[in-house]
């Protein structure tokens, strides 16, 4: 095992050396074309510094050696959900930060944090300063369950809960009460499983990650012993993927507590399922059968065919003490099966309720078309409907599903479409555009100062330093003002 660890370190350094050499070679090859700064060449603006923004930028820079790309990000820190979504015990997933960093440090790329597009600067202003604008601002809202009691203390959206343990500034004061024994999570996607795992994982498993220290302390004192993950449809429709399910199954000192009745008839259809679905289902059935360590005092369980109908409040009506679930039956079969209520309900006692039924994009500027039903910017292959020169990528283009690789592919697609439009003459490149110079000046008149990538690196260094003293890879700063102070120091 030790050997393997070392090998991985070596492997990491191989990637690093390669990455840098590729970057420098790339610069050398461009030779004369560079020196663009104020002169001609297409200028593209990207709104949002998450995976979609960085992958779109990467592809644009690679495909056209005369194009400059500026990324505007609301927060002083980059990387979007890779920093604020991906679970702290999944550091490998965050390796993508290395290539985002290379992109940000590219000669023809610049990062401008602390700019809230839609408020500090409008999309029309950006469109005037750039040849093209790409919206990659993700999904900052969440779907609500739309049931009575949803706003009671003790009920949280997964988005906020995840933001809390991942150090998202706006969630630092969440203070979830973890003094109850049972927590119910609604929804069975990977986010639901992330939350369940964080709630049940032994603290030793988390204490050397970049989880925020205040949440680590709260989790260390948590009394939560049982986590139920509730889905409206059946085992064959579960939304999570197998890696995350296996992590639940392998969680030390925790056993699985499932309802065998939920799996009636499943064994019979197993053999006809496509491989991914089949393996996922087999793993669930294994958990049903084996349960795991009987002596474990903590447990998790999947509950199927149940939809939330009401959050139940205690006698004083002041906080959540349970949830009423409607029992469902399935109409149809396969991925597209629908849940229909049977009329029966079931009450579950619980002091913590986390709604994990999906994130949701929100409109940021009235000048941009928005489809309220699908909660995306309406587009055709990444070209925003009826708006020449405006594009989109990532969750705001597709909706809030898909792993980083999905987001990467769709961002590459958007970049290719944009390049094609440049080449076909659909984008007017004949006029020079001022780009960041004009926008930074405009922001200055409004009292908005940006955080450049080199300034983020100061924040990064400080976070690493604070992490070191705690034996963690980093301790995230939770306060935007403090971030800004360090960035501009």
């Amino acid at each position: 095992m030790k050997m393997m660890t070392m090998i991985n370190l070596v492997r990491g350094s191989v990637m690093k050396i390669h990455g840098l050499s590729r970057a420098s070679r790339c610069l050398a090859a461009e030779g004369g074309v560079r020196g663009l700064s104020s002169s001609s060449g297409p200028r593209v603006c990207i709104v949002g510094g998450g995976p979609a923004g960085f992958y779109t930028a990467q592809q644009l820079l690679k495909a056209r050696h005369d194009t400059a790309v500026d990324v505007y990000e609301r927060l002083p820190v980059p990387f979007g959900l890779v920093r604020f979504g991906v679970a702290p015990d999944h550091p490998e997933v965050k390796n993508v930060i290395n290539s985002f960093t290379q992109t940000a440090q590219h000669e023809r790329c610049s990062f401008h944090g602390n700019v809230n597009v839609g408020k500090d600067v409008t999309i029309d202003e950006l469109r005037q300063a750039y040849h093209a604008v790409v919206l990659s601002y993700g999904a900052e809202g969440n779907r609500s369950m739309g049931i009575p009691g949803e706003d009671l203390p003790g009920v949280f959206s997964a988005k906020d809960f995840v933001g809390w343990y991942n150090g998202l500034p706006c969630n630092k004061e969440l203070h979830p009460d973890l003094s109850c024994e049972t927590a119910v999570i609604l929804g069975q996607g990977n986010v639901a499983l992330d939350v369940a795992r964080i709630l049940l994982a032994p603290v030793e498993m988390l204490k050397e990650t970049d989880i925020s220290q205040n949440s680590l302390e709260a989790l260390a004192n948590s009394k939560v012993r049982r986590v139920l993950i509730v889905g409206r449809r059946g085992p064959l429709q579960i939304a999570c993927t197998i890696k995350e399910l296996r992590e639940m199954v392998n969680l030390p000192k925790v056993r699985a507590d499932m309802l065998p009745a939920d799996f009636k008839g499943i064994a019979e259809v197993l053999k006809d399922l496509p491989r991914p679905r089949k393996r996922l289902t087999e793993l669930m059935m294994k958990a049903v059968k084996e349960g795991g360590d009987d002596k474990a005092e903590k447990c998790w369980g999947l509950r199927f065919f149940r939809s939330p109908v009401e959050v139940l409040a205690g006698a004083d009506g002041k906080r959540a003490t349970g949830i009423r679930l409607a029992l469902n039956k399935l109409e149809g079969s396969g991925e597209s099966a629908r849940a229909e209520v049977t009329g029966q309900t079931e009450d579950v006692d619980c002091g913590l309720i986390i709604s994990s039924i999906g994130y949701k994009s929100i409109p940021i500027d009235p000048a941009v078309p928005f489809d309220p039903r699908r909660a995306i910017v309406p587009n055709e292959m990444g070209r925003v409907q009826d708006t020449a020169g405006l594009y989109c990528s990532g969750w705001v283009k597709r909706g809030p599903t898909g792993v980083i690789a999905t987001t990467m592919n769709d961002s590459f697609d958007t970049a290719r479409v944009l390049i094609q439009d440049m080449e076909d003459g659909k984008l007017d490149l004949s006029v020079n555009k001022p780009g960041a110079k004009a926008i930074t000046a405009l922001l200055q008149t409004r009292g908005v100062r940006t955080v450049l990538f080199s300034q983020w690196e100061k924040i990064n260094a400080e976070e690493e330093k604070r992490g070191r003293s705690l034996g963690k890879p980093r301790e995230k700063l939770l306060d935007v003002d403090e971030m800004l102070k360090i960035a501009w120091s």
Partner: protein
Amino acid sequence: MSACALRVLLQRAAVMRKAAHQTFSQTRAFPQCVTGSYTYSRGINTLTNSLRAEEKVTVHFLNRDGKRISVKALTGESLLDIVVNHDLDIDGFGACEGTLACSTCHLIFEEAVYKKLGPISDEEMDMLDLAYGLTDTSRLGCQVCLRKDLDGMILRVPDVISDARVDSEKESSTAPPKV
């Protein structure tokens, strides 16, 4: 603060996570192929020098655009190493840097070669299940290492979904892959 330092940090994180794995579960989700051949002194040159030159074999990649790229590489290298070391132009390949967390290193093998590769770990299968265009002879490139008997093999780089409209349908991450 430099990018290097950031990377070192991330590597450390990965190592710590593995330490956690070691303590808490039997799961081993990392490539086994390099054991023995690699010394962990430093960097790529030392690695390659420590292997004898006669152990070079040829690998052919059929890229997405239909172009064939042929390279000579050393036994013991993973297919991800090859793509990286030879700077092969495959968009998005190896996003998680070989830590079994992304499936972007998906490659499709010829059936006879696939059979020679040996068993796949559950963890590799788990990530493969998320890959676009999954086939019965798919593997993750970061988990397969070059051997002498694989000389001359042809690897196909699968297409990724390139029509945004396909993707915007209600997506289920466990749906059968569309090629």
